C-alpha cells in the first residue's frame, strides 16, 4: 500500500534505493536509457526491502549486460547469450536467492533466443529484464532481431528486410508466467513493473524499451510514442494473445499475469545418505 495513501508520513527506511547501487559508476553514454533501469531496479529492491546479499543479477554481453557491477547485489557477468542458462542454474541450485537476469535485445533474442524459449517453458521463478534498443550497441550499430526491417546499417545496407522478432508474443506462447513492457523514460513505472515481476511466481519477463542515444538517436522520440498502461493485465492467455494483435510495439504495462505454478524440482521426500546409493552396485 502506498504510504502516501495512508495519510501518515513513514520514517525513512533503513535502505534507500542508493543503497542498492554499487560504488561503480556506469560508463553508458549520457542519454542512454539503461540508467533508468538501474534506478528502477534499485527502487524496486528498496521497496521490497530485499537484502542485497540475497539478490543476484545475472547478465550476458552488451552495454546493458554491464548492469550487475552497478548494483550492490551479487552479480554474474557471463558470456554472450547464456545469461538465462546461468540464472536458471543459479536459481535451481539456490532457490533461496532472488535471481534477476538482465541483458539486451541482441544477447537475449539472437544468440540467446533458444534459451529464451526454454526459459519461458521451464518457468523457473526468476525475472528477466531485456533492455531493447533495437540495435547492437556494444559492437557499434548492427541490426538486432528487433530492428525495423528498413533500418540502414553497415552490415545490412538498406535494412535487413526481416520481420522483427516479437518478444512478448514468443514469451506468451512459450509459457512465461508474467509478461510486461516498460520504458526507461519512466523509471518509477518500471520500478513498479519490476516489483510485480519479482513477486509474481514463475518466469517473469519485462521487455524494456531503452533508447540508444549513440546509434539510434531517433529513439529520443520514443517518449512521445509510448502508451502508458495500454495493457490491461489478464491471466487469460488467449485474451492476451488477441491483445497482441493490436500491439503497437509501444504499449506499456502488464500484458499477462498467469497462474502456472513455478518450476519445482521433483524428488523424494525422504533423503538418504550418499553411501546408501552403494546398494545398487553391491553383489
Amino acid at each position, binding site marked *: 500500500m*502506498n*504510504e*502516501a*495513501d495512508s*495519510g501518515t*508520513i*513513514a*520514517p*525513512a*527506511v533503513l535502505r*534507500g*534505493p*542508493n543503497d542498492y547501487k554499487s560504488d561503480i*559508476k*556506469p*560508463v553508458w*553514454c*549520457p*542519454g*542512454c*536509457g539503461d*540508467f*533508468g533501469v538501474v534506478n528502477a531496479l534499485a*527502487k524496486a529492491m*528498496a*521497496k521490497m526491502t530485499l537484502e542485497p546479499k540475497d539478490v543476484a543479477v545475472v547478465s550476458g*554481453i*552488451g*552495454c546493458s*549486460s554491464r548492469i550487475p557491477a552497478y548494483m550492490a547485489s551479487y552479480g554474474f557477468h557471463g558470456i554472450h547469450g547464456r545469461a538465462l542458462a546461468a540464472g536458471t542454474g543459479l536459481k535451481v541450485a539456490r532457490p533461496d536467492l532472488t535471481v534477476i537476469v538482465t541483458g539486451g535485445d541482441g544477447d537475449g533474442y539472437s544468440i540467446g533466443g533458444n534459451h529464451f524459449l526454454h526459459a519461458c517453458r521451464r518457468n523457473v521463478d526468476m525475472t528477466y529484464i531485456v533492455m531493447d534498443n533495437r540495435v547492437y550497441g*556494444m*559492437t*557499434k*550499430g548492427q541490426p538486432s532481431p528487433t530492428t525495423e526491417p528498413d533500418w540502414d546499417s553497415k552490415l545490412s545496407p538498406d535494412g535487413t528486410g526481416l520481420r522483427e522478432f516479437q518478444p512478448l508474443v514468443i514469451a506468451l506462447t512459450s509459457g512465461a508466467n508474467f509478461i510486461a513492457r516498460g520504458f*526507461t*523514460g*519512466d*523509471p*518509477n*513505472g518500471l520500478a513498479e513493473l519490476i516489483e510485480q515481476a519479482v513477486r509474481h511466481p514463475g518466469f517473469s519477463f519485462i521487455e524494456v524499451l531503452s*533508447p540508444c*542515444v*549513440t*546509434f539510434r538517436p531517433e529513439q*529520443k522520440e520514443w*517518449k512521445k510514442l509510448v502508451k*502508458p*498502461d495500454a495493457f490491461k493485465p489478464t491471466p487469460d492467455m488467449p485474451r492476451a494473445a488477441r491483445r497482441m494483435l493490436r500491439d503497437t510495439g509501444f504499449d506499456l504495462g502488464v500484458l499477462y499475469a498467469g497462474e502456472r505454478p513455478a518450476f519445482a524440482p521433483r524428488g523424494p521426500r525422504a533423503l538418504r545418505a550418499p553411501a546408501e546409493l552403494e546398494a545398487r552396485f553391491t553383489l
Partner: protein
Amino acid sequence: MKKQRLPRTVAEFMAYAWALEVEAADRYAELAELMATHHNREVSELFAKLARIEGKHRDQIAAQMGWTSPPDAAVFRWETPEGPETTDYGELHYLMQPWHALKLAEHNERRAVEFFERFAAARVPAGVRAAALEMAADEREHVRLIEEWLSRVPPPESGWDEDPDPPAVAD
C-alpha cells in the same frame, strides 16, 4: 499510473516538496559523476553545483519542518514519469555545453512552479494552499536565478555535437 494523492496536511505537502528536492539533488549528483566519466568537466561541475543547491533546498525544508528523520522519498508516486524537478536521463549528450545543462535546470524549475501551482489551485486545505503558493514563489525565484545564470553563459555554437572520433568498442 497511480493518480497522485492530494496532501491533506501541511506536513504531507512538505513531504512531497522534500521528495521533489531529494530526487532532483540525487539526479544532479548522478549526472555530475556521469559527465565526469565522459570528461565533460564544465558540465560536471555545473551539475555538481546544482546538486548542492537542491541539497540546500532539501535541507531547508527538513529544518523548517523540524524533521529528525525525514519521510522516505521512494514511496511517493509522481503523475509524471519522475519528479517535476528531476532531469530526464534521455536529455543528455556527452558533448553537451553548460548552456544545455542550464536549459534543463530551467525546465526543471518551471515544472516545479507548475507542480506547486497545481496543488495551490486544487481542493486542498487553506494551510496547504498557502504552503504551496510559498513553494511556487520560491521556485519562481529559482527560475529567475537560473535565467540570470543562463544570460552569463554563451549559447552553444553550431557543430557543438560533432565528434570526428568514431565510437569505440569496449566488450
